[in-house]
């Protein structure tokens, strides 16, 4: 009676299977007495070294494990953070933001702008959203009318994205209003600084897109008025 063979052909448990002696991926054919080595069927033999070869040393684990979000290609939190930082610290915004802006960051900013006054006992959700909506529509019409080159337009969502990210300094002011009394000289000065801060960062973005260098002040002024509205709501 022949001893039972397991699928791997191991009789002696201490003996290593033949097909695993050299390379675990090499195929051993005992009948034809040949070994089909890994990479023999690769069209481009130069790429053979990319396959696992037992003669070479085992590759070391030099690739650091990517964070889970990056591994899953979910980069929204990182994008939002980088864009808010570019607004707050006047960093150069990436071309991807100019061409394909997102709305998740502005939504987050506007919601926080509505939630922070709750800590001071003020409920301004309707005014923030209503004034923001009207201001956004008026600025959309104004910007597009001021672009004199025919065929050049800015879409609705792009303006909303730029304006929304520009509210980041106003959120900072709103956060400070929780701890400080802004209805004072210091508060007014801080409010003006925040309004200018927002205006400067957003007008830089519009200037880059519209290319109206000789009308930068004319574009900055309506933006200043837009952000002053939110500053007034935040202070009072």
């Amino acid at each position, binding site marked *: 009676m022949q001893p039972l063979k397991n699928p791997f052909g191991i009789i002696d448990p201490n003996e290593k299977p033949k097909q695993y002696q050299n390379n675990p991926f090499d195929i051993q054919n005992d009948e034809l007495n040949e070994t089909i080595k890994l990479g023999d069927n690769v069209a481009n033999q130069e790429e053979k070294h990319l396959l696992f070869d037992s003669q070479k040393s085992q590759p070391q684990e030099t690739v650091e494990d990517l964070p889970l979000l990056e591994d899953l290609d979910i980069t929204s939190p990182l994008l939002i953070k980088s864009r808010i930082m570019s607004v707050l610290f006047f960093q150069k915004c990436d071309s991807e933001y100019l061409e394909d802006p997102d709305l998740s960051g502005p939504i987050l900013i506007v919601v926080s702008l509505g939630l922070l006054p709750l800590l001071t006992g003020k409920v301004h959700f309707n005014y923030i959203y209503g004034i923001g909506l009207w201001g956004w529509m008026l600025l959309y019409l104004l910007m597009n009318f001021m672009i004199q080159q025919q065929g050049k337009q800015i879409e609705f969502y792009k303006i909303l994205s730029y304006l929304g990210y520009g509210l980041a300094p106003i959120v900072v002011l709103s956060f400070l209003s929780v701890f400080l009394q802004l209805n004072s000289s210091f508060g007014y000065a801080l409010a003006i600084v925040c309004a200018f801060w927002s205006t400067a960062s957003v007008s830089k973005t519009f200037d880059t897109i519209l290319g109206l260098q000789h009308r930068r002040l004319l574009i900055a002024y309506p933006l200043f008025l837009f952000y002053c509205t939110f500053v*007034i709501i935040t202070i009072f």
Partner: protein
Amino acid sequence: MKPELIPMTDPLDFIMIPVDQNKSFQSRIGNPFLEETASNIGKKIALFGTKYENFICSLFSSQYRFYFDVDNQYILRKLSLLHTPIIYRGDWTLSNETSSVSITKNMHAPDLYLPLMGLVTLVLLQCLNIGINNAPQYISIYMINSFWKCLIISSIEVALMRILFFLFGNLKVSIIDLVSISNYRYCSLTTLFIFNLITYHIFWTVGTMYILLSQAVFVYKSTQICIEQQIQKCENSFEPTLALFLSLLQVGCSCLIFYIL
């Protein structure tokens, strides 16, 4: 005797039935009426999207864009003209060569940028004043109410101006031009407000009188331009009277706005 094989059917077999990808969406729904309705709705949505895009393109490339074709020099010259029309010694005519091309070359051409910015600035300054002095908790309501009241008064004034133009010889003047001419007042009123804040209302009476007079002169001269453009088509001997009525209307509406704000 072999037992009869009872065919076993899995009730969830339909999940594993492969779907024929070549079949169109319509034939998958099953109901032809629903298919037709869904396709009609889809076509209407697509048509609406195309119409909206065409409308937006035509709006931004229409004549209305000329009312926003402003630059820094035009703004400065216009503001100086608004505040000092009495001492202005230049020509108040609107050149036919430049009227349809660009307003930056002609200071007397109407625009909509300055009136809009003037209105918003005035409302925000009033809100700031109230917030600092009186009742900060009603700022948001006051802001919205003031804005809408100013818009309503302006629209009533434009309607009255249009009626007056119709009564005095059936003159056809563009509504946008009337909106522009009548709403330059907000720039003057903003200046008056800032002046009163700086001088602590000491020269309130003098400042107000001067601003109202400047507005009246500006509207008088500007409406003469509109009338002269129409007067080439038909004779009109009521030109000075009409311009006077319009300037008085402008002063009355400015006082009303002052009272409301």
